[in-house]
């Protein structure tokens, strides 16, 4: 194994092979002797040293290892002192100019240092390799898992109306495309979906690409592509914002029309029955959001929606039934007109309240927040009974226990008195 020396040339540290050092020392002695007697010799020598350091590729960490070949090459470039020019002083060289390091490569501490350095370098490389493999495996796993989830999500959200999925999945699962077709102009749906996909997927793809670059140390930079994709993303975001703003501006004003029937005296038992039934409704598309259900009759371009029933106690001995039709639009007047166009029938006959199980919007109208609220207030102790054929669920009447048919107003709230309750 070759011995090495650490030396300082022009303020820069170099590690030199022993045989290279012999040649270099000889050369530097020679140069030093050549200029010793000249005015400004120190400056000349310093300049020559700086150039030698530059030729050796100084300033690196760890220090450059200088071989005998490198020294020979340097001498070929710089030339022997006697070749500099022919009328300089001819003086015998005598003194070493370079500053030699006090480092002793054979000392115990030097050997220990080299051993530990070698050990930890190898350990570091091993750990780095293990961590990289680990990162690749984890990255691949999560990427595959993520894509699997993503595609499942896309299929469920956008395509569950496809015959195969419809046959194997719960029909009430929300279908985004179906929902959007209820709310938005049909022509705007696919542009919105495509723009939304670009807005969400481009940053996701960028993050994935960044991860791949980090793991595989890819240094190439696709600046033009990056700029183009960023512009596409920005344009998509702006276009999406504009389209959504235009489409959703119909929700800016909300108005309602109400029809109220006072119950004086209120019946001891209020029976609830229904007229138009959801089960008999002709529709070819169905969607639900929380409690609301929408039925779309695409052949006639008619939209139906379920109403919402609320029952509470009244403050006095009388009661009332209030049916409120609500809708949104760009203006108050338009919102009132939309609310009045919601078709919903109900009537009171004796002690029985007849309600439609759905409301209907005019042909061609999109859902613009159209809701029918049925608000029933009854005195304390009044019983409310749904006829056996009617489930409270169809009217969005949701109080625990969910499936009960008979209730009684106690302390201002309906309490179940149904024998069927399996509490």
């Amino acid at each position, binding site marked *: 194994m070759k011995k090495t020396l650490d030396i300082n040339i022009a303020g820069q540290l170099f590690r030199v092979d022993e045989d290279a050092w012999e040649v270099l020392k000889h050369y530097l002695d020679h140069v030093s002797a050549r200029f010793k007697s000249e005015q400004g010799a120190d400056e000349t020598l310093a300049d*020559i040293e700086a150039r030698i350091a530059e030729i050796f590729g100084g300033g690196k960490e760890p220090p450059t290892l200088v071989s005998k070949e490198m020294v020979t090459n340097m001498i070929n470039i710089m030339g022997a002192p006697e070749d500099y020019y022919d009328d300089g002083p001819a003086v015998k060289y005598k003194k070493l100019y370079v500053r030699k390091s006090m480092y002793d490569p054979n000392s115990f501490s030097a050997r220990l240092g080299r051993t530990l350095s070698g050990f930890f370098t190898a350990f570091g490389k091993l750990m780095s390799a293990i961590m990289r493999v680990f990162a690749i495996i984890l990255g691949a796993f999560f990427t595959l898992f993520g894509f699997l989830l993503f595609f499942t999500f896309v299929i469920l959200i956008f395509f569950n109306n496809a015959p195969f999925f419809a046959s194997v999945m719960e029909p009430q699962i929300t279908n985004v495309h179906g929902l959007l077709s209820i709310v938005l102009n049909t022509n705007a749906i696919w542009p919105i979906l495509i723009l939304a996909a670009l807005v969400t997927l481009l940053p996701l793809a960028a993050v994935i690409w960044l991860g791949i670059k980090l793991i595989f140390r890819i240094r190439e930079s696709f600046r033009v592509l990056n700029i183009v994709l960023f512009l596409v993303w920005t344009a998509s975001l702006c276009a999406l914002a504009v389209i959504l703003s235009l489409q959703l501006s119909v929700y800016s004003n909300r108005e309602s029309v109400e029809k109220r029937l006072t119950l004086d005296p209120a019946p001891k038992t209020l029976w609830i029955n229904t007229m138009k039934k959801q089960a008999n409704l002709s529709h070819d598309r169905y969607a639900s959001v929380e409690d609301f259900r929408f039925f779309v009759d695409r052949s006639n371009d008619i939209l139906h929606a379920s109403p919402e029933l609320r029952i509470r106690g009244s403050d006095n001995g009388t009661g009332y039934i209030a049916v409120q039709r609500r809708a949104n639009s760009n203006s108050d007047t338009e919102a009132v007109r939309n609310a009045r166009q919601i078709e919903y029938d109900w009537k009171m006959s004796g002690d029985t309240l007849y309600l439609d199980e759905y409301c209907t919007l005019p042909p061609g109208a999109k859902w613009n927040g159209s809701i029918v609220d049925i608000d029933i207030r009854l005195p304390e102790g009044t019983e409310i009974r749904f006829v056996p054929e009617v489930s409270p669920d169809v009217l969005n009447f949701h109080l625990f226990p969910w499936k009960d048919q008979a209730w009684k107003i106690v302390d201002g709230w309906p309490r179940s008195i149904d024998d069927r309750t399996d509490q």
Partner: protein
Amino acid sequence: MRKGILEYCILAVLSRNSCYAVDIINELKKARVIVVEGTLYPLLTRQKNAGLLSYRWQESPQGPPRKYYELTELGQIYLRELDKVWDELVESVNQIRDRK
């Protein structure tokens, strides 16, 4: 004589731009005026000590700062004198060479 011509060439190179020693070397090597780099450094020191050149330190992208040499006013006057001498010398030599 060769040393004198070299000194003239160094001043001529520096008359265009301030230069780092390696730039001067490259130009002189390209013109085949010098073969080894070591020749340049004692000449630069000598010219600097004579007041013909000055230098400034400039940060380098690789390694320590570098000395950039430039002509002083005296150096420019001296160079103009050398130009004149050189032209006369070339003319005289050519006259002798061309006489048959």
